């Protein structure tokens, strides 16, 4: 049997949709475990990226190299290390996911702001805007397409990686995968994986819709991808 027949059989089994630990329950849990770290990472990464981008100068080299080194931290290893020391506390699963989500948000916010055309910035200054107004009314709206790309990439990373957190006992869709692997049942493993993929694609669609809503009409050309 192929991956899809296994996954489909399991997802369409009625018993998997009811009771404790059912698909709807784990789906909601997964969304909760993903939303919180993403929010925290956004609160750190966006202001930091905007500030560095606004200052300009040598910031670029530092941000890119820092983010690249930061990416090298293996989420699974950090998760397990924290689990050994702290047991199953909120920090144990929150911190690795926040760490994972920061680089794309930071890099894209930085590149968005740094990439605003000099003539546009000069015009804002020439109109007598204060630095704060220049950032909030001109630079951030212009950088919004890229800021959203960063948030989207991180959202997908977090939704995907929250799966691995099931290894140290977190709920969510990863439970089906990890428990299935442990008991040699490929059905829930494939089904859980399929649900995570569907969730990730929904996140992608959500951001596509969001960018239509919030990006100023004049900027609605194709946003660069990371």
């Amino acid at each position, binding site marked *: 049997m192929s991956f899809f027949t296994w996954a489909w059989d399991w997802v369409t089994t009625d018993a998997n949709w009811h009771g404790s630990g059912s698909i709807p329950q784990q789906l909601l849990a997964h969304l909760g475990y993903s939303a919180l770290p993403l929010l925290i990472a956004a609160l750190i990464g966006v202001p930091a990226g905007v500030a560095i981008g606004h200052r300009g100068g040598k910031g670029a080299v530092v941000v*890119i190299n820092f983010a690249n*080194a930061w990416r*090298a*931290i*293996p989420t*699974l290893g950090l998760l397990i290390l924290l689990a050994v020391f702290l047991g199953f506390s909120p920090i144990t699963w929150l911190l690795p996911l926040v760490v994972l989500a920061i680089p794309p948000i930071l890099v894209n916010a930085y590149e968005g702001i740094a990439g605003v055309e000099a003539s546009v910035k000069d015009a804002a200054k020439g109109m007598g805007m204060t630095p704060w107004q220049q950032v909030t009314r001109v630079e951030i709206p212009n950088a919004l397409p890229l800021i959203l790309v960063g948030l989207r990439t991180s959202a997908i990373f977090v939704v995907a990686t929250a799966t691995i957190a099931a290894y140290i006992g977190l709920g969510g869709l990863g439970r089906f995968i990890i428990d299935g692997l442990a008991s040699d049942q490929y059905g829930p493993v494939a089904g859980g*994986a399929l649900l995570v*993929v569907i969730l990730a*694609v929904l996140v*992608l669609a959500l951001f596509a819709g969001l960018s239509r809503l919030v990006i100023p009409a004049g900027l609605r050309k194709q946003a660069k991808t990371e």
Partner: protein
Amino acid sequence: MWSWIPSNGSLIWQLTWENAKLGVLPALYGLVISLPLGVIAARWRWFYPPVLTVVNILYAIPSLALFIALIPAFGLTDTTVSIALTVFSLCVILPNVVAGLRGVPAAVTQAATAMGYGAFRRLIAVELPLAVPVILAGLRVGVVASISLASVGQLIGVSSLGYLFIDGLQRSFPTEIYVGLVLVIALALVCDLILVAVRRALTPWAVS
């Protein structure tokens, strides 16, 4: 507790080597596939938007889920992990190949044409060299991410430094986890530095 390291030297060395292969080779495969695709996408513009959509969706697939989806076809083997990591590397490298090629100034390509360069020779001798910094920036992200993600392959039993995480958790032995973390990060940074050196060697005209 630190005496664990010297007494397990050969295991640590073997896992590091396996993790390096599992991380670096897929990134290189990804580069090899990205180059022709990127050249096509940079030349024929209609080709790129649909490809980019597919790439974005592929990139959204969790690594563990992709490993699992490939198990029926390739089993619990290196091949399963390598294919998945190749796909992810492709997703980060391809957009950079396209951006790098499109970023070559029109004046430069026109000058090359005026000097009698044909389309192929211009691509090899002018456009690709000028795109090297952007392409290598993508390759750096691909290599670092692959090395880090290769450790997840351990969850489906494919040997890598991830073994130290899982064994360390089961034995509640932090030393082993430290060693795994430090080696994964060190491995990624060494590869990153090598790529920076490669970029400098390939683009002697660049300032930094």
